[in-house]
């Protein structure tokens, strides 16, 4: 999987690069519009992370360029300008997703994976971890011992942790992803715990070889049991 990150803020770029490299993606970078366009013109990528505010122009031009050249790269706009205009314009011009800064690295990872899953042209988009098989579109999670009965939130948590397998997912990242921004820090996210407890029990019921581990009391990590 080849990913291009277009971002002029070097530290931000570094963070994103580190995160995605941990998932074994081939990551390339560009820090301005010119070099980005020349890279996009020559190579094909599976996914492009695009900052709108670039020193030599607007990232929207990349979207236009892709459209004109019939390129089908998945594009996620990554912008601190959380303005509705940008979001709508970006999505109308052909971006697949919009991620507002600041975001959690786990969220970035989940968005990239979801995009790649959707963009995967022929194959099915089934997630497999050990003996657990997750079919996000059909809302199914099962092992050879049976299917899990999950409500929407439990399912969302499971997918989120699964896409961030072996990585620390903080409670705030999880809450934001599953419950939405407005739940921010309500009661230190203690309400998440009961959901995790249910999920653990249901994983055990189908004898999944994975475990949701609490880390430092601030988050969770999905690992091989």
């Amino acid at each position, binding site marked *: 999987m080849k990913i291009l990150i277009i971002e002029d803020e070097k530290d931000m770029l570094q963070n994103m690069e580190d995160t995605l490299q941990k998932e074994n993606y081939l990551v390339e970078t560009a820090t301005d519009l010119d070099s980005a366009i020349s890279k996009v013109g020559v190579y094909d990528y599976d996914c492009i992370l695009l900052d709108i505010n670039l020193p030599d122009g607007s990232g929207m031009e990349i979207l236009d360029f892709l459209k004109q050249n019939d390129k089908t790269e998945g594009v996620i706009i990554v912008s601190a*300008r959380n303005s509705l205009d940008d979001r709508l314009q970006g999505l109308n011009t052909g971006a697949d997703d919009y991620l507002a800064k600041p975001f959690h690295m786990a969220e970035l990872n989940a968005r990239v994976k979801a995009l790649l899953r959707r963009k995967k042209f022929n194959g099915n988009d089934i997630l497999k971890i050990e003996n657990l098989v997750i079919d996000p579109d059909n809302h199914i999670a099962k092992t050879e011992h049976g299917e899990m009965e999950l409500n929407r939130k439990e399912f969302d948590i499971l997918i989120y942790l699964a896409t961030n397998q072996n990585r620390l997912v*903080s409670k705030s990242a999880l809450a934001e992803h599953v419950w939405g921004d407005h*739940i921010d*820090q309500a009661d230190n996210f203690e309400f998440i715990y*009961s959901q995790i407890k249910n999920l653990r029990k249901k994983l055990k019921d189908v004898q999944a070889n994975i475990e949701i581990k609490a880390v430092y009391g601030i988050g969770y990590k999905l690992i091989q049991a």
Partner: protein
Amino acid sequence: MKLLNYTSKYFAWLLFFVLTGWAIIFYFQMLDEIYDSMDDGLENQKLLVIRNTRQKDSMLIKSDFGDGYYTLNTISEKSALSFKDSYRDTLMYMHNEQDYEPVRLLESVFKQNDQYYKVKVITSMVEEDDLIEDLLFSILWLYLGLILSILILNNLILKKVWNPFYKLLENLRNFKIEKDQKIDLEDSKIEEFNTLNEDINDLITKSVRSYQSQKQFIENASHEIQTPIAIAINKLELLLEDNNLEEKQANKIISAIENLERLSRFNQSLLLLAKIENKQFPETQEINLNELTQNILKNFEDLIVHKNARLKVDSKEQLILYINPDLAQILLTNLIKNAIIHNPDSGLIRISIDSKNWQIANPGDESLDQKYLFTRFQKVKDNSRSSGLGLAISRAIANLYNLDLSYHFQDGHIFKISVSEAR
């Protein structure tokens, strides 16, 4: 009062006084002229009577007017010498009117053949009361005629003249700085209107420019602050993922992340508040608050269960507002979240909705300070995580749409959104 009526009112008063004054002066002048010509006529008749008398040798004493217009009597020398010609008004019985009517009387003396005679000549006179009445009516008709003319003039001509002005008013009323760049102005033949148009256009251009730059500043500020925060949070997250951290170290990193997240949320809240006050949410649509409430409660389901809160929603009637959907969501979310978070264990949260009011109540021990409740940075003592902006944002949203957001304490905290009657 409309401009046209306003000027008409002044015209009416002005005309009233001018015409009244004119009528008084006119009346006396006319009366004066009438007396003058009547007295001349009497003088002439007197001379005719005297000449007639002299031509006849025998003196015809005529002691009453009878069918004539004069009387002739002898008079002693003594009284004749002290007599002077006099004009005066008197009353005389008129057979045609069967009433006493005013007549003008000239008394004079003359000498004929050593005998003094006194002659009285009369002529019928203007009836003053009739004159006044006639004049009054004429003036009234004139006055009404003039007022009517002015009204017609105002409505036909002035309306046409002021038309560009009214168009401008209409355009200004419909102008929305969030959407429009300028207003269409009509060229007028009148210099003042053209100047007004130009000045208003200048003003609007300046306002739009400053509005845009403020909007841009808000977005840029958001960007400039969010980016470093995002970088710092992500670096710390990556650091946390290193497996060889001790729990103590990890906790310090977590605390740093939490504070940075708080800063980020705080920044976003401030920007949101600025955007609301800057009216940067022009899109509005019909929102059903009953449905919206249910959707928000669904989001908070887990928190409600976790907080062991009981919930009762009483939808008496549908409440529909014309409002920006994002702002409606924020408004209700803030109030609902507050109620859930500050709800005592197993307390009952009651939401009631009718066609004019949306109200949420939860139990509490003592009233909050209403004076500062909706102001910025008002924090609840034991909650360091709150930004203190939630209620200020809710109030700003309510103000934007002329809604009344109020708090009162009655066996618990009650927040109420009411549709203002004055809308």
